[in-house]
């Protein structure tokens, strides 16, 4: 019987203070939130297994985005076989290191990478429904233009704007809109991708 599990012993050789993968940086604590991306096998229950790593420790995720992944080079994956998860969470470096290792330990998780402090492209989408009569429109449209937001629903008393940007910019955008009276706000949660040829 042959077994095609990847012999990755060497990659697991770690010095204290470092998480299992060489490009994981857990000791940079500049940002209060960490973003972890996971490549997982798209199996029933994988989301539960991932969230149990948090809930068991009494931790919460700030945001979680799950989406289908393309076939992965070298894994011979059929379409739909893998998913991406992007999780933002808070936590001290020790806990975060444990969380990442517990992710890696899950059979259905192919890899887990903490991107905190790494060069990444990140993005988040927001839909904002605002009370907007004739008097507010001009000012609202100016804000929208500045943030490259698009008005996707234009009504007599309300409008919906869609904005895709970094999380911090979206925060600023939403703050500017608050005085006008936000009726509803839906945000997608952060997604990101490592720059250059680094793996996400």
């Amino acid at each position, binding site marked *: *019987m*042959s*077994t*095609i*599990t*990847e*012999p*990755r*012993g*060497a*990659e*697991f*050789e*770690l*010095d*204290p*203070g470092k998480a*299992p993968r060489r490009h994981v940086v857990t000791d940079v604590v500049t940002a209060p939130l960490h973003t972890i991306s996971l490549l*997982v*096998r798209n199996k*029933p*229950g994988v989301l*539960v*297994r991932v969230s*149990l790593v948090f809930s*068991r420790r009494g931790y919460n995720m700030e945001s979680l985005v799950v989406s289908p992944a393309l076939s*992965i080079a070298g*894994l*011979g*994956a059929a379409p739909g076989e893998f998913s991406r998860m992007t999780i933002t969470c808070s936590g001290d470096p*020790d806990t975060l*290191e*444990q969380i990442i*290792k*517990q992710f*890696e*330990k*899950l*059979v*259905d*998780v*192919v*890899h887990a990478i903490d991107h905190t402090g790494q060069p990444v492209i990140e993005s988040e989408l927001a839909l904002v429904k605002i009370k907007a009569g004739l008097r507010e429109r001009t000012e609202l449209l100016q804000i929208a233009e500045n943030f490259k937001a698009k008005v996707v629903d234009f009504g007599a008393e309300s409008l919906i704007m869609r904005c895709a940007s970094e999380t911090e910019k979206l925060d600023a955008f939403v703050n500017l809109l608050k005085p006008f009276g936000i009726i509803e706000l839906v945000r997608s949660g952060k997604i990101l991708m490592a720059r250059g040829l680094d793996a996400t």
Partner: protein
Amino acid sequence: MVTPTPQKVSSGGDKVVQCLEREGVEVVYGYSGGAAMPIFDALVDSRIKFVLTRHEQGAAHMADGYARATGKPGVVLVTSGPGATNCVTGLLTALMDSVPMIVLTGQTITSMLGKDAFQEADVTGITYPVVKHSYLIKEAAEIPRVMREAFHIATTGRPGPVLIDLPKDVTQGPCTAPFVDTVNLPGYHVPDRPARALLEKTAALLAKSRRPVLYVGHGAVISNAGQAILQLATTLGAPIVNTLLGKGACTEDHPLHLGMLGMHGTAYANRAVEHCDLIMAIGARWDDRITGKLSEFCPEATKIHVDIDVAEFNKVVRPDVCLAADARLAIEELVPLVRKLDTADWLKEIAGWRRQYPLKYARKGGLRAQHVLDRLDTLGGRDCIITTDVGQHQMWAAQFCRTTRNRHWISSGGAGTMGFGFPAAIGAAMATGTPTWCVVGDGGFQMTVAELATAKLQKAPVKILVINNHYLGMIRQWQELFFDNRLSGADLEGNPDFVKLAAAYDIPGKRVTRAGDVDKAIKWAMAYNEGPCLIDAEVVKEDNVFPMIPAGAPYSGMIVERPKVKMEKPTGST
């Protein structure tokens, strides 16, 4: 005209059983039920032996005992709903102690999933936190692949239990899928050999040590690293201590062996750990029973950690070097890189502690559990497998019954599951045919006592030694030491007559109440191998396990006898 008889198409249940046969399974422990009927039907035509237990928890612990005694995965087959939930404690026990186990659970038909069908439970949902991995099979075609993956996952790397939930329509319907030999699990990585550079770093750290200690855990038992560790210890001139589950990896009667460390370890092992300048964990995980107060645990000592599970690194302590590897391979490759250390003074100091704090107990005032276990050790206990339950008797057995062979000591460590010892002994005895002493307390024994029927039916050579003090002794000890002796929920009033209880199952038994009768009873049980037998040792009601490092206290807070002054309530985990 003769019509050709149609080729019988395998059912899903047939396929499951055929896969078990291909994996080399000899015995399945379990309890039947509606949703598992097609699998039970397939067992009729199989050479696999099925053992009907008296409770699903018993089945899980028997499979666990089988696995710990042999290193092969134990297999459990139960039905849906309550059948499956009764296995949850068994899964936790196996997960905490890294025991390879396959648990097959029946499930309602797929079209009824989530609709509160009779005996339906969300079994994969209930068991996520207590399995290494699990599956809910919805197509019969998945059976061969899932079965192969399950055995691969359960037995490789850090072993653990894998659960497979099998809806009845999947096992009843046809399954034509071919058998699978390969496993493709891109997210599953098993370290084997350590990196050369880290081995050299380890050797360099060892070379600087003058007061080293090798701290050996269950990983060394699982990977059969004992010989290599003894070689390392003798080459270095370093003493060995082992955890409760590490007993047996290295023979405990070796002159360099100091016995068990930790909360109820020997005082000389604990003094050595307290004063060492280097501690090397081999297949051990710095458990809270071992470290005591973490901030004061070997603060100045160099720490080396060998483990196959990288998630254990930096979890509790931050070692100076971590070797991600199979324990045996790591130590075998390390031995040629090390040389004799100057440990003469260190070993002399340890010998002093050994003289200063021998394991001891009162010889007067009635029959003592320690005396019974001490005699068991002398009268051939070392040639038998010993299983224990959880509590005072477990600690006394760990102290007084020295284990000299790998896989001859079976005890629930991480989970501390009462009710484990007796069914585990049945599994171990059946698997090996080796005479198996099952040391249990009067509390834990009653939790799974119904398996007396199973032991009798299987003629398992299990020698049940009930350390009977009519108390939950460890609870009573804590309440005496830390809670002003305000006893609460500790008195086992209403115990049965265990000898008569055994007799009701046609199992011979003897009661021992005097120290002078102990040898005779042990010899009697040693000579009886036709099936199970029982000794009810009525020991003194109030006795304490010492040495003791109260939970959360540092090693320097170890007490070796009953303190004269009132003690603070322990702050550590339980």
